[in-house]
């Protein structure tokens, strides 16, 4: 198992009000597996994604990546873990508007320690893999929503992470483009044996998922 969460609990406290979001969640992801994480708004999907991706610390429980316990680390160590093990795809794409397609991908590689011609070559390969060679030197403002999400996927794949975590990756795309993006995800997960966790409301994700996990009121229900 490449990613594992055990008895994850997360509570938020505002003044005297304590809000439990996750109530002892267990979760696992195998290499090459695609898991769709579904649930209504406010059910705790994104919170779980953030905890599994070392962005948020759980109130209780722990997370393991490739058998190594990663929760309870310093923010610097968590950043290092994110660099080494995770790729992220966001609902809003979150590309750097001042950087071209190629530079967006290359910058993520730079953060992961790759530099110079090596980083440039890998970025070119990733841009080619998502079918954007002819848009490599475009700025994000000149791209369609689907093209932006392809750039985000290429960026997430940079540095060959073990796990890709995607938060509503098709939410801002039309149906046809959304299907193309999901197909791209499936190809990536199966060809490189990466684990893929997709938080979604989109029923089309079910078609590519190996497993569907539903979360309600902070508790997991396997569908």
């Amino acid at each position, binding site marked *: 198992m490449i990613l594992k969460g055990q008895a994850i609990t997360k509570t938020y406290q505002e003044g005297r009000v304590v809000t439990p979001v996750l109530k002892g969640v267990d979760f696992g992801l195998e290499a090459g597996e695609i898991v769709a994480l579904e649930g209504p708004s406010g059910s705790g999907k*994104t919170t779980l*994604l*953030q905890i599994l991706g070392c*962005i*948020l610390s759980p109130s209780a429980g722990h997370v393991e990546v490739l058998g190594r316990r990663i929760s309870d680390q310093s*923010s*610097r160590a968590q*950043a*290092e873990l*994110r*660099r*080494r093990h*995770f*790729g*992220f795809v*966001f*609902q*809003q794409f*979150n590309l*750097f*508007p*001042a*950087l071209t397609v190629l*530079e967006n991908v*290359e*910058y*993520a590689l*730079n*953060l*992961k320690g790759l*530099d*110079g011609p090596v*980083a440039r070559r890998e970025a070119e390969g990733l841009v080619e893999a998502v079918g954007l060679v002819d848009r490599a030197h475009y700025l994000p403002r000149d791209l369609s929503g689907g093209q932006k999400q392809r750039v985000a996927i290429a*960026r*997430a794949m940079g540095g060959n992470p073990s796990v890709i975590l995607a*938060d509503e990756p098709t939410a801002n795309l039309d149906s046809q483009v959304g299907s193309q993006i999901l197909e791209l995800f499936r190809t990536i997960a199966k060809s490189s044996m990466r684990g893929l966790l997709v938080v979604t409301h989109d029923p089309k994700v079910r078609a590519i998922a190996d497993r569907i996990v539903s979360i309600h009121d902070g508790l997991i229900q396997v569908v």
Partner: protein
Amino acid sequence: MVDLGLKTLLHDRTRFFITVAGVAFAVTLVLAQVGLFVGLLDNATITIRKASADLWITSHNTANVDFPQRFPETRVDRVRSVPGVQRADNLIVTFMSVATPSGAAENTVIYALKDFKAWNLPWDLKEGRVEDLRRGRYVFMDEGATRRFGSFRTEDTREIQETRLRIVGQTRGAQSFTTNPISFMDYDLVQSMQPDFLGGKTTYILVKLAPGADLEATRRELQRRLPYNDVFTSAQWAKKSRDYWVISTGLGLNAYLTVFLGCLVGVVVVAQTLYTSTMEHLKEFGTVKAIGGTNADIYRILARQATISALIGFGAGLAIALILVPLAGRAHLKLILPLPFVLAVAAGTVLMCLAAAMLSFRKVAGIDPGLVFRS
């Protein structure tokens, strides 16, 4: 390596222009104000630096070269008798009024010697032979004096201290700290024009040492033999004259205040634009953190933006200041930009901008990478 800091900075050109303009304004303010002050200080000591005297003997407690006090001219004989002195001559520095063609009167600082050539005064001749000053009622005027005295040419006459004198030569760059032009006249002529005031008196004695003579030992011996005078090396006398204007008059404080205000303007402009820019790019910084970047990565982006703004702003400010140099010259003002001062301003500008960026450091330190998941 992809330069996210530079690319983001240049992406918003309006903001970048405002930042650079703010820095350039601050740099120009500091360079021009301090450069003009340095120019004035250069005037304050120019005759001391240009004259070939090793020692200057002044009346006791004379504040600076432009405020001369009289003492008996016969003391020069005592000076000449001191071992190590090769040559000593009286120098009169005094103020006289010049009648302008419009009927108004202006002041000029007169430097009077018997043998100008022996003392390298005046140091930059435009026209004429200084030896001619001994031959009659003649004067050398500085070309920069036309603004004060009206236009004149060599061979014109001017009324100085109610005496008509012929201009037999012109000098360049002879101006006092108070911007009064310096004129050069024969020593005896000056005494004859102000007999009650200067008869038998001088204001300074210039001393040249014999080869191999010990400067400090000779100075001490002269001071011992002239208890009612002060004896300075040229460097000491220049420092004393400069310090008078910088410290005693408060002009130095004024210059420091200008530098401080320039820095303040720069810091405020850069801090404000960088901070606003940081606030607008919070989500991008959150993305940097989410995909594995650390606070240090973001600090580097901000520091790079601040440094680039500083260097480009400094370059623009320096260019404007360099354009001002000849313009100031046309107004007979010296705007001097010594290299160490320019380098200090460059370093100060970078430090100032980095200090301004630190305001944003605090903001990004607290960025939650989870914010990228919020729509």
